[in-house]
């Protein structure tokens, strides 16, 4: 019989064989797309009003924040509104990935207890779902920025690498938080505070350039700061983002992704007994 032989032995601490892990993950890529699709359908985002809500929600939010800025700050212009909306949309990509990722492993309990598969599929799916929620808002922003007359230019293409950095970051936080949640289930309750704090500490309600230099020194501690700053430069102002910002964002994203993935992979084999 040409049956494949599989051997299960006690595992050493640390990472599983990465080559085999990747192969088994790649073989299951349809799971990730199917899972995202089913999940979106279940949340009614395949219907007209569901999609409309997806766009309406951040749009209304940005309107509320805009009102706040006008009332408190007094001055305002269309660039400000564009900046607010674009940044908020990208922020939601990360925050959706975080809130979707946190329960991805614990919610998959039944599957994890009864099927052998690379567990990392679950937080990856959460990030993909967040991405699908982000795409329509991007379209809305493009329409909006045409209406309010923001400048177009080839510099806007810099948004592409910034987007990939954001995705890497979103994936990294989803993987990390899903793993942490297995050991500390109450982390879910802290999450709203974490995202709220991130929202106010990032250049969304204000522009990075309007901060005093003293405050800007603190930005190195916020991974989203350089990412959102570069994003706004590219898509709102149609300028080339600062290289240092991009590199800083990339370093954060790569760091969180690698550390989170290391923790996840070295821990995932005991998830079945922890759930």
């Amino acid at each position: 019989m040409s049956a494949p032989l599989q051997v299960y032995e006690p595992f050493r601490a640390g990472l599983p064989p990465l080559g085999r892990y990747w192969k088994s993950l790649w073989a299951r890529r349809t799971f990730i797309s199917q899972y995202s699709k089913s999940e979106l359908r279940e949340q009614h985002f395949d219907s007209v009003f569901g999609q409309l809500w997806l766009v309406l929600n951040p749009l209304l939010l940005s309107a509320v924040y805009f009102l706040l800025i006008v009332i408190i700050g007094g001055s305002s212009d269309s660039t400000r509104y564009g900046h607010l909306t674009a940044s908020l949309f990208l922020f939601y990509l990360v925050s959706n990935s975080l809130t979707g990722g946190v329960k991805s492993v614990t919610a998959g309990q039944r599957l994890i207890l009864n099927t052998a598969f690379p567990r990392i599929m679950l937080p990856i799916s959460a990030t993909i779902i967040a991405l699908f929620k982000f795409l329509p808002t991007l379209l809305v922003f493009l329409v909006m920025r045409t209406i309010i007359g923001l400048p177009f230019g080839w510099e806007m293409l810099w948004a592409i690498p910034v987007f990939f950095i954001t995705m890497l970051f979103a994936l990294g936080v989803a993987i990390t938080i899903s793993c942490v949640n297995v050991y500390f289930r109450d982390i879910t309750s802290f999450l709203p505070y974490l995202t709220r704090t991130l929202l106010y500490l990032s250049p969304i309600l204000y522009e990075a350039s309007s901060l005093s230099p003293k405050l800007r020194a603190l930005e190195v501690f916020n991974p989203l700061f350089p990412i959102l700053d570069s994003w706004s430069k590219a898509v709102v102002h149609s300028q080339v983002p600062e290289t240092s910002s991009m590199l800083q964002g990339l370093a954060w994203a790569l760091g969180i992704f690698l550390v989170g993935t290391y923790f996840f992979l070295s821990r995932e084999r005991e998830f079945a007994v922890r759930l």
Partner: protein
Amino acid sequence: MPSVSNTPLITNEVAVSVRNLGLTYTTAIDRRPTLKARLKSLGGKQTRTIRALDDVNLDIEYGQVLGVIGTNGAGKSSLMRVIAGILPPSQGRVEVYGSVSTLLALGVGFNPAMSGRDNVLLGGLAAGMSRDEIEQHFDEIADFSELGEAIDSPMRSYSSGMYARLAFSVAATVRPDILIVDEALSTGDAKFKEKSLNRIKELRSEDRALILVSHAMRTLREVCNDIAWLHKGKLIQRGEPNTVIDAYQEFLHLGKSAVVDEDL
């Protein structure tokens, strides 16, 4: 499909080889591990070690229909999960020759908000099957489960019987080399029980190993050609079904009343 006889031949071709298998794990004493609980008991010991399997040696050959019996907490499910590659062993070595069903059936329904159809598809994809493979089997699964239109409604609206019927249908339709059916035998109404028993009998063949975990002794006597009795993580006895089951029931100080036979 090879010819299916009523008593399949044992081919002496090893399907699963379990050597000196031990499985220990530590679990939190708290029901839910939280940061709050961890901080409250800083420094204190808050885990206990469970020895789920202790030096188990077991060979399963192709053509064999192995029944696994034992009281609750004997380690039956743990053993199945190690064979399926879900739990890594703490000691020893497990060799599996062929594809395992990976308890697929029980993973079905992991997301109660999704329809039965989505759950079957996702469970199959997670187990490493291709979409075509699943879709090919899907009608058969839906037919066998007799769920009708309910297959497209969310699984949270299912009764426990419907749940079990879908799970068994998946297990019975997807045809791996090594099929593990964990307790799913004794579910559903009498009619479905009969039907699933017949399906199990059909699935016995020379090139498949069947492992049935069940408390339904009469069924095991009827279907299996080998029984392994686990108790507190140790393999107590292995051999001819009637002998082992009799010994097991004697051990439990229970007579051979019909109730015991079926519902234990």
